[in-house]
C-alpha cells in the first residue's frame, strides 16, 4: 500500500532517453534497447519493454521485462531488415507510466567484422608473424639451439630399458579428445616412442578413451613403425579402445599395468582426477614413468608420482625437440620472442596501472 500511495503522491516519472539500435558485432537478429531510469527508482517493481513492428502506429507487443532496475535489454526475437520502434513502461505495482516511443527505426543486420575483436586480431597477426618469420629463417638455414628437456631425453632410455627387461611399453593418451591440442601433441610423442620401440622390436600398448583418438593413434603408431622400417611388426590390436568412462578407463588401464607389467609407462595428454590413480599404479609395478600434461591441477600429482614430467608448454615443444625439424624448431624460437614481448607488456601494464594509466588494460579488456 505504501509504495502505491507514494508513487501517486510523487507521480511516477517515465524513463528517459530510450534508444534502440542494431546490436553491434553480431550475426543479426538482435536489437539493443537502452534507457535511463529516473531518480525515484525505489518505487519501480517492474520494467516492461514494448515493441512495434513496421511503424509507430502498430500494436505494441511486450517483448521483455525485468523485476529489478535495469537500463539495457537485448531483443533477440527480431528479424533482419524490418524497422522496429520501442517504448519502455515502468510499473509501481498497478500504477504505470510509459516512455516516449523511439523516433528513429531500429533495423537489425549482421556484421561482417567484429570490431570488438580487433585487439585479438592484432595480437594474433603479430604472433603468427613472429612464428612465420622464424619458420622462414629456419628454411634459409642457420641452426637453432634448444635447451635440454630432461623428460624428453629420457624417452629413448625408457624404451631401451623396458626392452632389456623384455617388457612392453604402455602409452596412455589421457582423457582428451582429438579436438584438444594436448592430445595432438601427445600423438607426436607417441610417434617417436613407437619408432624407437620398432627399432628395438618392443611392443607398444595404447589403450584409448575416445574412439577417434584410437583411430588417429593407430595411424600414428603405424607411421612410426613404417619410419623405423618395420611395418611387419605392427598389428592393429596394439592400439585399442577401452571405455569412455573416466574411472572405468582408469580401472582398465590399472588392470593392464598389473597384468602385462610394462617396463615403461608414458602418460601424455590431457588428464583429470584419474592422473594419480594411473601414476601410482604405474609406480607400484616399478615401471619408468614419463608424464606430461597441460592440466595445471594434475601436474603436482605427476611430479610426485612419476620419474619425469613435461610441464605444460614443454609438452608442446616436445614434437619439435624430438623431430629436430628446423621448421618446427623455428616456431619454438618464435614462441620465445613472443614470451619476451609479453613479459615487457606485463611489466609495462603493471607500471602503468601503478601510475593510474589504464588504456593498455582497457585494450586487453575488449575481448
Amino acid at each position, binding site marked *: 500500500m505504501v509504495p502505491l500511495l507514494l508513487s501517486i503522491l510523487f507521480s511516477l516519472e517515465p524513463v528517459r532517453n530510450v534508444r534502440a539500435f542494431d546490436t553491434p558485432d553480431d550475426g543479426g537478429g538482435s536489437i539493443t534497447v537502452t534507457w535511463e531510469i529516473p531518480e525515484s527508482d525505489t518505487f519501480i517493481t517492474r520494467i516492461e519493454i514494448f515493441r512495434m513492428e513496421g511503424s509507430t502506429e502498430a500494436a505494441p507487443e511486450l517483448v521483455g521485462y525485468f523485476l529489478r532496475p535495469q537500463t539495457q535489454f537485448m531483443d533477440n526475437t527480431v528479424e533482419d531488415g524490418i524497422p522496429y520502434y520501442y517504448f519502455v513502461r515502468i510499473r509501481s505495482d498497478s500504477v504505470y507510466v510509459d516512455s516516449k516511443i523511439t523516433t528513429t527505426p531500429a533495423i537489425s543486420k549482421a556484421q561482417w567484422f567484429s570490431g570488438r575483436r580487433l585487439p585479438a586480431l592484432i*595480437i594474433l597477426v603479430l604472433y603468427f608473424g613472429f612464428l612465420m618469420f622464424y619458420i622462414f629463417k629456419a628454411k634459409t638455414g642457420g641452426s637453432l639451439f634448444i635447451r635440454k628437456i630432461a623428460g624428453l631425453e629420457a624417452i629413448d632410455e625408457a624404451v631401451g630399458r623396458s626392452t632389456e627387461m623384455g617388457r612392453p611399453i604402455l602409452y596412455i593418451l589421457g582423457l582428451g579428445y582429438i579436438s584438444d591440442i594436448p592430445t595432438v601433441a601427445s600423438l607426436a610423442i607417441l610417434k617417436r616412442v613407437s619408432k624407437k620401440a620398432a627399432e628395438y622390436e618392443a611392443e607398444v600398448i595404447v589403450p584409448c578413451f575416445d574412439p577417434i583418438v584410437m583411430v588417429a593413434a593407430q595411424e600414428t603408431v603405424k607411421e612410426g613403425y613404417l619410419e623405423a622400417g618395420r611395418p611387419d611388426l605392427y598389428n592393429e590390436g596394439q592400439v585399442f579402445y577401452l571405455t*569412455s568412462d573416466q574411472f*572405468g578407463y582408469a580401472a582398465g588401464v590399472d588392470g593392464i599395468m598389473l597384468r602385462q607389467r610394462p617396463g615403461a609407462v608414458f602418460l601424455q595428454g590431457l588428464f583429470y582426477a584419474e592422473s594419480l590413480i594411473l601414476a601410482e599404479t604405474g609406480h607400484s609395478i616399478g615401471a619408468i614413468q614419463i608424464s606430461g600434461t597441460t592440466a595445471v591441477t594434475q601436474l603436482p600429482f605427476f611430479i610426485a608420482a612419476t620419474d619425469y614430467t613435461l610441464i605444460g608448454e614443454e609438452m608442446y615443444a616436445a614434437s619439435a625437440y624430438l623431430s629436430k625439424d628446423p621448421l618446427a624448431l623455428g616456431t619454438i624460437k618464435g614462441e620465445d620472442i613472443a614470451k619476451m614481448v609479453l613479459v615487457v607488456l*606485463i611489466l609495462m601494464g603493471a607500471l602503468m596501472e601503478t601510475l593510474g594509466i589504464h588504456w593498455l588494460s582497457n585494450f*586487453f579488456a575488449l575481448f
Partner: protein
Amino acid sequence: MTSVFWTWVAAFFTLSILSFLYKDNPFYKFAEHIYVGSSAAFYVLQLWVFDVYPKLVGGFQYKVGIEKWILIIPAFLSVLMLTRFIKPISWLSRWAIAFTVGMAAGLGVTGLLQGFLVPQVKATFLPFYVPGTSFWNSFYLSVNNILIVLGTVATIFYFYFSREHKGALGTISRAGITFIMIAFGASFGYTVMARVSLLIGRMYFLIHDWLHLA
C-alpha cells in the same frame, strides 16, 4: 527386499574395487572387467540418446533448407571413418581424421587466445602500489601484487627454450621453478580434502547403508 539386494550388489562392487589396494585378485579383475564392459555400453547409449540422435536424426527431421542438407557432410565423414572396416580403402578414414585435427587446431587458436592468453595477461596488470586502509594494509596488498607480477614473469622465463639457462636467465628461471614448486605443493595439499571426502562417502555407505553400524 529388492532394495536390500541392490545394496548388497553395490557393496560387493565397492569392496571388490577396494581389494585392489592389497593386490590384484579375482574380485578386482571381475569388477574391473564388468566396469569396462558396462560403462562402454553406457556411453554408447548416452552418446546416442543425448548427442547423435538429436543432432543427426533430429537435425534431418526438424531443420530446413541448407541447414538440413549440410548434415550430409558429417554423415559422409562418418562413412569415411567406417571405411576402416574395409582394408583396401581404409586410408580414406584419414580424411575424417584430418577434419577433426584441423578442428583441434582452429579451436586451439581461438580458445587459447580468448580463454587463456589475453585474460591471463590482463589479470597480471596489477599496480605495484595499492592505497590501503592503513600503512600495513597498503604494504600487504602492494607486496602481494608485486609477488604475483614477478612470480608470473619468472615462471614464464622458466619456459624459455632457445637459450641455455645460465647467468641472469638462469637466476630468473630458478626463481620461476621455486614459484612452481610452492604452487604444486599448495595445489596438492588443497586437493587432499576433496579426495578424502570421496573415501568417507564410500566408507559411510559400507558402514551405514550396508552394515547399519553407524
